[in-house]
């Protein structure tokens, strides 16, 4: 069965399947001898590496291990290695850093968002909705976005259960229930993983246009994105969005690669690679999720009119002017009056603009 799976998988993914034996670490750390360290040292000094009893002394033997000499195992999935010491490091990193701080990072992210909400509140349209709209995202764009979104959510939830379940969930719902949830989470995670890759590729192609950095972004940065301070003008995408896009693309690809390695272990040359993948995957996940929280906030609660762009695809001109003035100008070919000035000035132009916008639309 296993074998057939392997063969088929090879065929499917046209990849060289590493035999399971090779799932082992590259170098080995000999343990300090528990019973008679002292004695050994003396004897090694006395008898050197070989003695009349022929049996090469301790030191030789451990040296072999230290040089990561492969053994020859007659059997077993664990192959030729005696000790894979990375396991220990991996455990420490995962347990004491990832799980611990990962959790805190997320918590902090949420906290900051709440804090921001309390301080800044919902970013309203200064001029209120005009009712006039400009098309921002086409249907395929939206589909791609929501496709990614749904996969992302499924993966985040299942992933977080696997990462933090034992610390957060288990104490609450108990071992058995938690194991059930975790089992579901793992199966789900493994199943949706590959879809994430599809989504990612699609998303990248759909959104890469307009996501390259420009001078405007520099100003935007200097103005701190205008979140707190004065307005910062931006094109179709502002720096924040671009940053988010590239984060998704880059971090996403890393997640995809590490994910695949973990999903198809025989792709990994060594256990070490798997261990590293787990770590990187976790870090990437934390980063993406916390960023995503921000993205979701600003896309929904945080900013009036933002959500429209992903539901209907058409945004209110006011929104456009206030948040993506450069884009607005580009689309309509009209200068946006200084947003800092009285909105009243700009109101008369509305019909014209919308007319313009329609024309540009059609």
């Amino acid at each position, binding site marked *: 069965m296993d074998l057939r799976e392997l063969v088929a998988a090879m065929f499917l993914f046209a990849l060289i399947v590493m035999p399971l034996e090779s799932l082992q670490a590259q170098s080995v750390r000999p343990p300090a001898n528990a019973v008679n360290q002292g004695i050994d040292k003396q004897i090694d000094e006395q008898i050197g590496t070989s003695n*009349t*009893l*022929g*049996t090469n002394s301790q030191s030789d033997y451990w040296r072999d291990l230290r040089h990561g000499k492969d053994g020859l195992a*007659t*059997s077993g999935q664990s192959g030729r290695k005696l000790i894979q010491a990375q396991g220990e490091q991996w455990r420490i990193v995962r347990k004491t850093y990832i799980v611990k701080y990962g959790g805190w990072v997320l918590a902090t992210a949420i906290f900051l968002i709440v804090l921001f909400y309390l301080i800044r509140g919902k970013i309203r349209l200064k001029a209120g909705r005009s009712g006039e709209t400009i098309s921002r995202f086409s249907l395929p764009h939206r589909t791609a976005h929501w496709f990614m979104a749904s996969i992302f959510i499924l993966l985040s939830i299942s992933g977080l259960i696997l990462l933090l379940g034992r610390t957060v969930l288990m104490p609450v719902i108990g*071992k058995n229930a938690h194991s059930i949830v975790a089992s579901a989470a793992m199966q789900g995670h493994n199943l949706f993983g590959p879809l994430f890759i599809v989504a990612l590729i699609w998303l990248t192609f759909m959104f890469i246009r307009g996501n390259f950095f420009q001078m405007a972004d520099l100003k935007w940065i200097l103005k701190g994105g205008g979140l707190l301070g004065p307005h910062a003008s931006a094109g179709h995408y502002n720096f924040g969005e671009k940053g988010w896009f590239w984060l998704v693309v880059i971090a996403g690809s890393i997640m995809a690669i590490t994910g695949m390695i973990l999903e198809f272990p025989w792709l990994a040359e060594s256990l070490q690679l798997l261990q590293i993948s787990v770590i990187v995957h976790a870090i990437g996940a934390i980063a993406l999720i916390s960023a995503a929280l921000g993205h979701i906030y600003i896309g929904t609660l945080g900013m009036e009119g933002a959500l429209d762009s992903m539901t209907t695809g058409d945004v209110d001109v006011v929104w456009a002017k206030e948040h993506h003035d450069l884009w607005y100008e580009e689309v309509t070919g009209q200068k946006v009056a200084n947003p800092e000035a009285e909105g009243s000035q700009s109101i008369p132009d509305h019909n014209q603009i919308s007319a313009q916008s329609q024309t540009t639309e059609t």
Partner: protein
Amino acid sequence: MLRKKIGEVAKGPRLSSALKEMTKGTVDRRTFLKKSGLAVGGIGAAATLTGGRVQKAHAAGSDAKVELKKSVCTNCSVGCTVMAEVQNGVWIGQEPGFDSPFNLGAHCAKGAAAREAAHGDRRLKYPTKLVDGKWKRISWDEAINEVGDIMLDIKKTSGPDSVYWLGSAKHSNEQAYLFRKFYAFWGSNNGDHQARICHSTTVAGVANTWGYGAMTNSYNDIHNSKAMILIGSNPTEAHPVAMQHLMKAKENNNAPLIVCDPRFTRTAAKATEYVRMRPGTDVALIWGILWHILENGWEDKEYIRQRVWGMNYIAEEVARWNPEECERVTGVPGSQLKRVARTLANNRPGTLIWCMGGTQHTNGNNNTRAYCILQLALGNIGKSGGGANIFRGHDNVQGATDFCVLSHSLPGYYGLKKGSWQHWARVWDVSYDYLLGKFASEKLMQSKGIPVSRWIDGVLEDKKNMDQPDNLRAMVFWGHAPNSQTRGGEMKTAMEKLDLLVVIDPYPTVSAVMHDRKDGVYLLPATTQYETYGSVTASNRSLQWREKVIEPVFESLPDHTIMYKFATKLGFADEMFKNIAINNDEPMVEDITREFNKGMWTIGYTGQSPERLKLHMANQHTFDKTTLQAKGGPADGEYYGLPWPCWGTADIKHPGTPNLYDPSKPVAEGGLCFRNRFGLKSPEKWGSENLLADGSYPVDSEIKDGYPEFTMGMLKKLGWDSDLTADERSFIEGLSGDKTNWKVDLTGGIQRVAIKHGCAPFGNAKARTVVWNFPDPIPTHREPLYTPRRDLLDKYATYADKQAYRLPTMYASIQKNDYSKDYPIILTSGRLVEYEGGGDESRSNPWLAELQQDMFVEINTADANNIGIRDGEMVWVETPEKSKIRVKAMLTERVGKGVAFLPFHFGGHFQGKDLRSKYPEGADPYVLGEAANTVMTYGYDSVTQMQESKVSLCKITRA
């Protein structure tokens, strides 16, 4: 819920017993309990045995009680006790047999997986015959009748000698004895078994040196060795449990462990000194060592004076083997051999261990004799801790050899002379003429039959070159794997030329598939030894009694039952089983034992009655783990398994002989001296010197010097005949009066009296180092037939061709051709720990098969790089006789440059062709592979026809 089982902890006795013997027995129950601070019998004690096994039966009513059955492992000759847990007739588990003095609970991979034999997933399940290329299930009666008719027809047309009865070392003593008797009653000497290709040269060489051909001491006695030298022996893979005993000597006595082998074996890895020699140069090597010993006067002069004859002749030969010459031939530097010699001289007594590496050569008998001579020179024979410890291969190869399932002797090495036949006729309670009537002629009756190694030629040879009326036309493989025999290519042809091919075996074996026959093949399922009972002789001559673990699985039958069925069909059952009770076709095993007890005087198989053997098995724990002697208990003072010779009848309660030729004990208590077997004087060509021992004799001997073997006349001269009872005397007088020899005295009177007076019945002589009746009276080095060293041929050429065992045998005519150009690499073969023999059984055992899934060839990295082979690639190994096999290449330093090694357990592939489809449904082993012996070449020992499977030449190319 997850915190569980506080205090479920091993009870003391087990741990201590488990560990006691591997240390110096310090951990006894009390100390354990003290140290571990456990309450005596916690939950541990509470847990009843049944509890643990309930689920193992996977069967209803599984709360039935679990019985413990004691059997003996059927793999190698160590004789490990297998403790079987049986519930409702299901073999549900194995426990370590801690009480067994041989293995102390230990097993190797094979022993630990013994239970699978009873699952028998891949067993041959019912009688099957080949009908135009298809396997057809038939009933036992059909099988017996059809086979029997064909045989009778062959007997009519070509004579009894055209049917070959190939027995097995896997038979119990009773079955082996019965089998030998069987083909005697059939009327032919064309029967044999694996011993021929295993230790026949040992038996010939050793027996002709000091009397008996068996391992002189025991595995356990190695505990006393101060030095161990292994030549062509690899116990870590072939006798793993024996290593336990070697390790003990190595650790407790700081005994150096010297390994001489062309391969850096796993044993060598544990050695203190490893000597890498060129395959087939054993004699040269030994003489090289002996050269230093004699040179420095390290030999035991007094010992030699008293107990060894002809050392002066040896000295002359050895003198020619100075370090330079020795290195030129063996490739071993003189300095190292000097070190070895000194080590052996300084650490006495030392034991010498050899196996196939020494025996399987065209001059195998020279090798074995050379080994003996080395030990004699050191004065190591007949001493505890010394001895020639010859590890036998199969579980009962010693027994089967003792019962002479061979083509050249009757049970007990009586030979084939008229007297021998008459002796056995008396034991069997039939007339000599009755037996004679069965044979084609008295000449054939008294002439050696074809040995198993040569059956191929028995079929293929032109009949006018043969010393028997016709070719072999029927082969019966009764527990023999053909892939353990060389010349596979020709064997295929031979198999196809036969009229009838019968395989009687628990597994189909390679015999079922390697040929392209369309019919005339019968496969009859025999049981394993776990499905029957009887005695088995371990390498150290101890007999152990097996209990029946389970009833025969599927339709398989015990071998002795099958023999009875055939005997009935062939029409000699009544005479053959005259004194053996039969219950529904199964001969009573104990009766068989008692019958051979009546006749096996020569080697003392007479004292081991079933009762005594069962007693020993039941009281294993009372025997000392080093001396093997019972301390108290019902078997007080006896040695475990009554190692033969166990003199006299069971009633005189001889304890058995733990170490042969050891004069430090009275004969009555297991002491001995060398056997007087070769006359009183050497022939004048060899100075007609006195062969009797000189001033050496077993303790309490009333004759304080050497003496010839006992006869009635001798008793009278000594005036001891008065000790004979009336019936003893009357029988002896009735037999042949004063000439009556102790060997044929069915009452055992003569030896009883001899022993009473502290004398060994077989006399007290010197060991002879010169065997004047052998082709090489003094062991001499001879190059293998396929040798790469043409430069040595002028000095060390092989024998001239000759007629032997009814067949022309080639030596010089092969050696004269130079193959070393096209076939530059020396090819040798050997064992793997997971498999055994032809491997059909072990390769059908998933627990073992999983561990070795590929047939491979070990090639030295340098050679491989020169040829351009990478590790794990498939390669062709081809030998001069033009057969070739396709195997995986394993690059390793284990073999020296210019040497390649093949494990011989694989089968089921033939010259690159996978034969799996040809096996009967569901009986194909899990693992198949090329048989090494498909490519192993011609070459037979000059005395015993042992096959040359350790040296050939080959060419390795990428596949």
